[in-house]
């Protein structure tokens, strides 16, 4: 079922601008929040069950309650708009078309956390989106939602947008803070966590764009009402960025009760696979999460229909499941080569490794080179085991999760598509011109008998 909280009004003409946004009920949550106690807002967010929408899915209310509050030390809220996970482009959509919802959510969140200066760290390539946000901030300030003594409440808040300059790693919250401090985006060694020592050594909360925007409906309708939507611990709505080989790529706001099958094939969402092709595989949560072959994607190992939510997507662990991640839904049709695709992702992670710790710095490049040689017909059978061993030695042994993010796609590709790797090794003359195809991965529902 489509349930819209964030994108409900996105198609209204002029919603990018304050007057229309306000007329459509914008900034009500700020009016309401300023009359509440900051801690009650945190409680409301806890009740909502909102989980971080950046990828890790950590409960937002809990993250907020970890924020240290020493006397005389400023606290900061930083919005993570460094959207860079391949397959993910939802934050850009939100900021580009309905920027005020982010600003509104940030004002409420800043008030709840006691931040008087909040920053939006946006990826450098979103240059024009930066202008849109800065314009929206200026409009909000002109209308008394930012600055000194907001709406007569005595609460002061300034908000600034800072552009990054091309580094995926700055989506990791401590690397983001380093970058915001004008340094290289090297993730910090934790502890201390940002909640204790963050921006310029002060307690800081870093939240994703979609997370902060979701605070608006939570405060407007109440945390309990938000928690009613969805299923289990997957409450509220989630923006899914759908891309790859589908008829209708784009951003979809879903409540997390629909099945993966419906999401891919229904005309309301992705609209199926183009050109009558069959589904081969899918990465359901951004490039870092494990790829699943069609059969395991649509049904769990237990034989249940897989749903588009945190629990169901991870059902079966890494053996037969994947993760919700950032909601970057990448679909591969029968013509796609898993080895080539894995190589492309390995190249991405090598390019984006900060180079600080040795397993990631050296291991990502090594995996890329081996994958390229297998893809170009120069691989050996032992290379497949070697790849497996390298990813295993990177995973869990690095400073930040980029190591895991680089290891998982390689591991999952070998786990589920080993025969395709072996085919490349055994058919060096064919592997650049021919396609391994589907074999037993074919979607059992939609290709039966065809």
């Amino acid at each position: 079922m489509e349930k819209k909280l964030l994108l409900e009004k996105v198609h209204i003409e002029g919603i990018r601008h304050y007057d229309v946004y306000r007329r459509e009920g914008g900034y009500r949550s700020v009016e309401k929040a300023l009359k509440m106690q900051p801690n009650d807002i945190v409680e409301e967010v806890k009740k909502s069950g909102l989980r971080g929408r950046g990828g890790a899915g950590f409960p937002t209310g809990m993250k907020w309650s970890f924020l240290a509050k020493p006397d005389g030390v400023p606290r900061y809220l930083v919005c993570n708009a460094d959207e860079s996970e391949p397959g993910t482009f939802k934050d850009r959509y939100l900021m580009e078309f309905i920027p005020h919802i982010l600003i509104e959510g940030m004002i409420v969140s800043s008030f709840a956390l006691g931040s008087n200066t909040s920053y939006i760290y946006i990826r450098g390539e979103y240059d024009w989106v930066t202008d849109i946000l800065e314009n929206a901030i200026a409009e909000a300030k002109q209308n008394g939602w930012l600055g000194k003594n907001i709406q007569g409440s005595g609460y002061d808040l300034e908000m600034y947008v800072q552009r990054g300059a091309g580094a995926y790693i700055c989506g990791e919250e401590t690397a983001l803070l380093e970058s915001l401090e004008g340094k290289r985006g090297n993730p910090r060694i934790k502890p201390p966590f940002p909640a204790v020592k963050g921006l310029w050594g002060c307690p800081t909360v870093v939240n994703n764009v979609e997370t902060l925007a979701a605070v608006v409906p939570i405060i407007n309708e109440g945390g309990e009402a938000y928690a009613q939507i969805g299923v289990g611990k997957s409450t509220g709505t989630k923006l899914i960025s759908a891309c790859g080989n589908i008829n209708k790529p784009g951003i979809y706001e879903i409540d997390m009760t629909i099945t993966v099958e419906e999401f891919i094939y229904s005309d309301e969402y992705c609209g199926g696979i183009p050109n009558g092709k069959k589904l081969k595989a899918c990465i359901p949560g951004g490039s870092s999460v494990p790829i699943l072959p069609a059969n395991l994607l649509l049904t769990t190992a237990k034989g249940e229909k897989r749903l588009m939510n945190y629990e169901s997507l991870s059902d079966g662990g890494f053996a037969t499941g994947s993760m919700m991640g950032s909601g970057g839904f990448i679909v591969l049709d029968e013509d796609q080569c898993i080895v080539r695709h894995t190589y492309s992702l390995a190249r991405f992670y090598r390019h984006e490794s900060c180079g600080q710790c040795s397993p990631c710095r050296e291991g990502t490049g090594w995996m890329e080179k081996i994958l390229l040689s297998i893809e170009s017909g120069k691989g050996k059978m032992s290379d497949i085991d070697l790849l497996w061993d390298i990813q295993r030695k990177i995973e869990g042994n690095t400073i930040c999760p980029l190591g895991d993010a680089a290891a998982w796609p390689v591991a999952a590709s070998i786990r589920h598509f080993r025969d395709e790797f072996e085919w490349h090794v055994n058919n060096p003359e064919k592997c650049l011109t021919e396609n391994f195809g589907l074999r037993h991965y074919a979607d059992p529902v939609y290709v039966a008998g065809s």
Partner: protein
Amino acid sequence: MSEEIKTIKVTIDNITIDVAPGTSILQAARMIGGDVTPPAMCYYSKLEGSGGKCRTCLVEVAAGSTADPRPMPKLVASCRTGVMDGMIVKNMTSEKVPEARAGVVEFLLLNHPLDCPICDQAGECHLQDLGYDHGKEGTRYQFARRTFKKEDIGPYIQLHMTRCILCYRCTYVADQITNKRAHGIIDRGDHAAISTYISKAIDNDFSGNMIDVCPVGALTDKTFRFKNRVWFTKPMDAHRDCQTPGCCGKATLWLRGDEVFRVTARKDEWGEVQSFDGKPGWICNTCRFETKQTSSWTIEGLTTISRHSVIGANKYQTLEMPKETVKKVMRGVEPKLLMDIHSVSGVNNPDIHLSEINGPAHSSDFKK
């Protein structure tokens, strides 16, 4: 009110020790010493902010603390993880650690040139030691290694980036000990390099300490370059009344005969600069590079070197000759060869003693 000094208990490889709160696992392990201590390539106790990067000191935390005895899900960098009361740590006793550490060694050596035979650091290289102690034989890497051009950074130091393992220690020295940093980390990922970017000279009284903290042969002393092998030189502790503010004036002279080939700071058993009166004993460039006459120094005596180190070879002349002869020890048997092949092999003529053959033995020698 009496102030109680609280200590906490940590168990590493089944050895329990009391330490002050705030101690890291690595520091606690160093207090125990021996094989319990994880190796450290980037951590340097005298440099604030160092550590966490090389991942060689990874250990398993089998129990987080008495209050929360759950194991930690991943291996942790012992240099940057504080101990908790009741924490149980596994280093050598862990099943996971040796494998992960061998992996890290392989990663560190992946692009390393292994040019030890022509590297000045050989014999005192921490990467060599690490490789021998924790690595595996051979390499599985089949691609071209990353290389960089050599770079002179100032009159005294040569940067051989190809050997660098990016421990960042030298940048911390520049930040914390010299008054100005002119070099840093350029580029990112597997292209990241230590550099001045535009070949700027590093000109500072304390820049030489970067050589001492470098765990590999990436930063070497140009005044010592190719002059000698470290194990041919004899390390002597010495001091002088140095006028440079901040210089401890205590050094190790590396001698051959009466000639001072090299001056370094004094190192402790972990390969770090020794502390004197609680302060790290950094030395200035005048002491290090320009004071190479024994007459300028008061020599204290031979530097203590680990018996396991190649540098210790032939240095300890005070050993006494054993009084018992080999014949006596071997109950009257005269030593000829350590293994007498005549007694186990009928191929050769037992009447011919190998020791009597002049030069290399040939089959014809046995046909007499």
